[in-house]
């Protein structure tokens, strides 16, 4: 008898490598080794993981069509096996894979769409937390505000792209969305029960980017003003708080969590 661990190792190896023969001792009712029967397990593993990717990246699938998406996802699945039984974690680096996948170059924004959809999936499953309200900021000593550091809400994700990602995504959710060429910054967040995808001004996005990177509020605002004279830190904070961008509590400079 083959030791069970060794036998399962051989089974697992043959599952992920179609070039390997059916492991010894695995037979049909006729007693023969039947590659077509073993291939059912290979196909289940691959088709199952392709299905996980299709469910997580539905707009990507529509952008390239189901056949192209399946072929691309199969290549990803071949080299990327899940490390967790929780499939919502699978495919986290699919965008990076797409970026290096030459046949996908015809849709240059495909990788950014994968980033957006990954952020949507994270937001959908993120911990429940009431986002920081603008009222909380008003209670702070105003002289200390420029030194504040704000933590991102667990559901919040920022995508800054050279392409109109928010509009393209919206066009796949509802009729009548007009997509105009040009860069867009998108905040994915969950201020209440449902995930929302919002196109935000570029200066607000740069401001938020610096805040999410751990910069003090004053530093982030200066960077945003450098991008656009029209940037208004108060108006941006009100808007971003309403979208659920920040977690509570506020972390003042010098705290243990300051980056």
């Amino acid at each position, binding site marked *: 008898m083959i030791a*069970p*661990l060794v036998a*399962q190792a051989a089974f697992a190896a043959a599952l992920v490598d179609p070039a390997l023969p059916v492991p010894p001792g695995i037979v049909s*009712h006729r007693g023969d080794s039947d590659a077509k*029967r073993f291939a059912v397990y290979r196909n289940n593993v691959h088709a199952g993981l392709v299905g996980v990717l299709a469910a997580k990246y539905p707009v990507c699938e529509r952008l390239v069509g189901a056949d192209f998406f399946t072929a691309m996802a199969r290549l990803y699945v071949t080299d990327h096996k899940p490390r967790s*039984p929780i499939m919502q974690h699978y495919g986290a680096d699919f965008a990076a894979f797409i970026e290096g996948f030459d046949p996908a170059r015809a849709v240059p924004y495909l990788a950014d769409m994968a980033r957006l959809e990954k952020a949507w999936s994270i*937001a959908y499953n993120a911990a*429940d937390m009431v986002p920081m309200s603008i009222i909380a900021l008003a209670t702070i000593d105003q002289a200390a505000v420029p030194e504040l550091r704000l933590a991102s809400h667990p559901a919040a994700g920022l995508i800054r792209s050279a392409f109109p990602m928010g509009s393209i995504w919206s066009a796949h959710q509802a009729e009548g969305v007009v997509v105009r060429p040009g860069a867009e910054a998108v905040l994915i967040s969950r201020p209440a029960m449902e995930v929302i995808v919002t196109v935000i001004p570029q200066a607000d996005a740069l401001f938020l980017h610096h805040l999410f990177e751990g910069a003090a509020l004053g530093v982030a605002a200066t960077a945003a003003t450098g991008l656009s004279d029209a940037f208004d830190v108060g108006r941006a904070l009100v808007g971003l708080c309403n979208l659920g961008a920040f977690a509570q509590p506020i972390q003042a400079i010098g705290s243990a969590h300051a980056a």
Partner: protein
Amino acid sequence: MQPANLPPRAGLGLKPQHYAEILATRPPIGFFEVHAENYMGDGGPPHRYLADIVAQYPLSLHGVGLSIGGAGPLDRDHLRRLRALIERYRPQSFSEHLAWSSHEESRLNDLLPLPYTPATLDNVVAHVDQVQQTLGCRMLLENPSTYVLFAESSIDEVDFLAAIAERSGCGLLLDVNNVMVSAVNHRLDPFAYVDRFPLHQVGEIHLAGYDETTDAAGDRLLIDAHASRVSPDVFALYTHTLARTGPLPTLVEWDNDVPAFAVLAEEAGIVDAALEAAARRHQPRERVA
């Protein structure tokens, strides 16, 4: 140890695309079943909706990632996650599979077969013991659908499952579609399988649709697909089972190409009719020769 106490009614798998419709229309479904691994995120709509559903319907928690048939040790982190889910939602039943899906660090995302030998029996019994002790409840173990056999197997599958239940005290989940799939694939009599099965240990039945292909020799090969209505031959085997057991909680599994909720509800209605007929006609010794 709490007993499995799902109602002897038709249940459906809970799908995110149906959350809102179920809560708005409150369809007369006996229970809902979820895959535990789909509710292991930190928060968000899945938990919010599940909490609302659980407030109105009995829940069956069905694991697909524990790898109870794995030769290596069980994943303690995964067991802790399951325990947290059970404490949070208090399901009427927890079930898992006689299968493995993890090898060391690799998760294979499928329910893989194991040989039936005295050594693998000891290992599975030890794993079921550990699961029941950690989770603090009796679990149901599901019979697999298989496409291959192991030359080294020395124990019949029904005897193997009966021995696990006997030694560990777990209950069994009888997947009637899996019985049909495996019986056709290995040229066995599915009715004889059910007739030999320790039916008094069965706490839940699963039904599903299968796909069909052929193997390398051109022999008929059924695939456990969960992508269509329950096949007529599986339904006949189901009513044969009910004639022996009386009504049991019965899940219609439809996990791929999931249709509109109305189609699932229609399948549940067909199953409920069979359960009502079984309740009217059930006489425990009627079929015993």
